[in-house]
């Protein structure tokens, strides 16, 4: 590093599109991810709204059965591989991990840029199935064999896209692990790291050690389709259950790739908006590792009805229940953090509280599905759809938007309209629960998932759910336009620390300079949330 940016922030140091798409600055790469992710998210939302519109009334409202199948597959592939899996690590992890550790970049800046490029190439491959070939896949995002081997739609390209995007995920994880080991500021031991860094550390290990399995499995699907080898299709000698095992060996840990970073940002926002230290720092840090570890051994709970020995089902069910322990530890610690804090109700805190509420519904319904007897009844019903949307969207999605509202002034150096953000949150929250809670009820009533049609007795919950999707869309549009409007404001000075936070990103300028810090970051005396010994921050 020879060049020193004087009074410029990282937006101003270089101009032009190439200074962005070939930048090795972690902050710019984070924003590249952010703009791409939000684009794909909006595509995914649109597909979701289409699905809900089709399900407004029994019978055909809008699209044919096959088109509906393609829409829900595309919705799943986009939301999972292009949005939720990269979301918090790639955007906020990239931007804030180095700053929170008190360094100026990740360990391998060029590899970081490569990860984004791989992600974009994979995303374009996935979207190309909309235009080329025999139409997008209609298999569901799980690509279950033997249907994925037999269908005439363009499964090969979708599967290769997921394979390519996997590498992006692996390389980001690798980069973060090395960064956490090597680049912490002097004096910051592992147990003085912010909890967001801990959660990214646990996540990165899952990305690194689980993703290759799905990579090779998806390649086998391609081999089976192209060469006609009987790997998973029973009519040519394959074993479809083996595919399900291989798929979930990755895809269950992937659930924690999606959830753990959300736990991390929640653990950052709570201390800031209660102005006190987090309750149970070590318990939260180690429970992330525990979840990551146990998460490897419970994939079988996706397959209770597909043919496994009774012993295997029993063991998988019991291990699944074990995950509830570290997760509950986190929830209790979060709630205890609020106790006797000086609570400052701001939009990020509202998202945090909604996260805790919704994630608990998601978690408890997960236990209902993890229990063998109830799962037989509920497997492949709307109860499952409601459950995982409560976890993924009500949990991780809300944490993502909470994090966006939390770090917005730091990233862009501006502030959105707080009142509008609060109103948008309330609409978003109501819309979300209207959209997904009736799904839990429809599922309990026995409505199966993945059909474009349903029996008349499920009409009421479906109607409420579709109306909810419109409320949610209004809330989302209001929220995003408020954030965009904030960016258009001129000559704002939010200062270094608008929320009175304590982690290191609040010690630097907003937006940060290219090298992240204009003076040596100072860590608090007793751990990252020691508000009693908060270093004084002068402007």
């Amino acid at each position: 590093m020879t060049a020193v940016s004087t009074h410029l922030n990282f937006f101003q140091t270089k101009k032009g599109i190439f200074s962005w798409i070939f930048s090795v600055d972690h902050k710019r790469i984070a924003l590249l991810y952010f703009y791409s992710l939000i684009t794909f998210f909006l595509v995914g939302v649109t597909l979701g709204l289409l699905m809900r519109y089709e399900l407004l009334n029994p019978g055909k409202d809008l699209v044919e059965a096959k088109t509906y199948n393609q829409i829900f597959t595309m919705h799943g592939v986009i939301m999972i591989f292009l949005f939720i899996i990269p979301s918090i690590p790639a955007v906020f992890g990239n931007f804030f991990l180095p700053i929170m550790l008190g360094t100026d970049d990740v360990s391998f800046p060029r590899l970081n840029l490569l990860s984004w490029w791989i992600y974009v190439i994979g995303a374009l491959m996935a979207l190309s199935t909309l235009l080329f070939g025999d139409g997008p896949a209609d298999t569901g995002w799980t690509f279950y064999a033997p249907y994925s081997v037999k269908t005439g739609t363009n499964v090969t390209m979708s599967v290769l896209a997921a394979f390519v995007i996997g590498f992006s995920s692996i390389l980001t994880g690798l980069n973060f692990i090395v960064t956490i080991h090597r680049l912490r500021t002097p004096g910051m031991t592992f147990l003085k790291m912010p909890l967001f860094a801990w959660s990214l550390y646990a996540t990165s290990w899952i990305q690194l050690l689980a993703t290759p399995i799905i990579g090779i499995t998806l390649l086998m699907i391609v081999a089976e389709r192209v060469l006609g080898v009987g790997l998973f299709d029973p009519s040519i000698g394959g074993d479809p259950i083996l595919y399900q095992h291989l798929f979930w060996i990755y895809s269950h840990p992937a659930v924690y790739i999606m959830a753990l970073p959300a736990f991390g940002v929640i653990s950052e926002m709570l201390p800031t908006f209660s102005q006190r230290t987090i309750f149970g720092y070590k318990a939260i840090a180690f429970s992330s590792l525990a979840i990551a570890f146990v998460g490897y051994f419970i994939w079988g709970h996706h397959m209770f009805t597909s043919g496994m020995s009774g012993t295997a089902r029993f063991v998988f069910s019991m291990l699944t229940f074990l995950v509830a322990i570290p997760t509950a530890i986190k929830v209790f610690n979060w709630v205890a953090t609020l106790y006797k804090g000086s609570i400052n109700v701001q939009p990020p805190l509202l998202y945090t509280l909604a996260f805790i509420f919704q994630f608990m519904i998601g978690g408890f319904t997960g236990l209902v599905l993890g229990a063998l007897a109830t799962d037989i009844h509920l497997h492949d019903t709307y109860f499952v759809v409601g459950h995982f949307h409560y976890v993924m969207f009500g949990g991780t999605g809300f944490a993502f938007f909470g994090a966006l509202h939390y770090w917005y002034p730091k990233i862009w150096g501006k502030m959105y309209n707080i009142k509008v953000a609060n109103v948008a949150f309330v609409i978003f929250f109501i819309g979300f629960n209207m959209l997904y809670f009736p799904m839990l009820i429809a599922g309990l009533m026995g409505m199966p998932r993945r059909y474009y049609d349903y029996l008349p007795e499920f009409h009421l919950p479906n109607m409420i759910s579709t109306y909810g999707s419109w409320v949610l869309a209004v809330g989302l549009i209001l929220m995003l336009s408020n954030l965009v409007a904030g960016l258009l404001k001129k000559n704002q000075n939010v200062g270094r620390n608008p929320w009175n936070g304590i982690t290191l990103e609040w010690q630097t300028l907003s937006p940060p300079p290219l090298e992240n810090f204009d003076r040596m970051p100072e860590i608090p005396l007793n751990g990252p949330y020691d508000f009693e010994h908060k270093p004084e921050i002068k402007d």
Partner: protein
Amino acid sequence: MEHAHGLHLPNSGHNRDDEASKMGMWLFLFTELLLFGGLFIVYMVYRMLNHEAFLLSSFELNVWLGTINTVVLLVSSMTIAMSITAIQKGNSAQSIRLLMTTVGLSLLFLVIKYFEWSSKIHHGLFPGMDYYNNLPKGEALFFFLYFMMTGLHALHIIIGGILIGVVAYRTKKGEVTSKKYTLTENAGLYWHLVDLIWIYLFPLFYLIH
């Protein structure tokens, strides 16, 4: 304006950090192990289900060529380890010679593999060929796994060979020296992994009954 200047941090991500490079390589090797691990699981499951057919098919493979290739790879692992020692001692010329020997051995491995594969393909055993399509299911799976796993391994040999060639070139240009040889070490780590995977592939396909 004292706050307005960028700061050079002691823990900068742009500093040279050999430990970080090596840690990155080790983590990458973990992902490689898991990539092959998925295939080993599939091999294990189908071998249990089609034990007889797998045994029968394995007799089709040429144990002699497999053994020679094993020896070739083991020797190449030794030569790259020696090249690391050479560069540590500052003997660049010797290091380059040993690196090029390793590249030569990797080519020899590929040539032998080429003859093995072409004789199988000549017999119609490659997935998708007419003879292959009429094989019993267990034997078809064996040959698919044989081609997929040794093929993926051969791809790693090619990448490793190119990587080692690059290291030799950069050593010649003086970019790799006795004070800065992490690149050679990382190439060595990668090459040992490729070697190690073959050590498992060889008995699984050629030897075990």
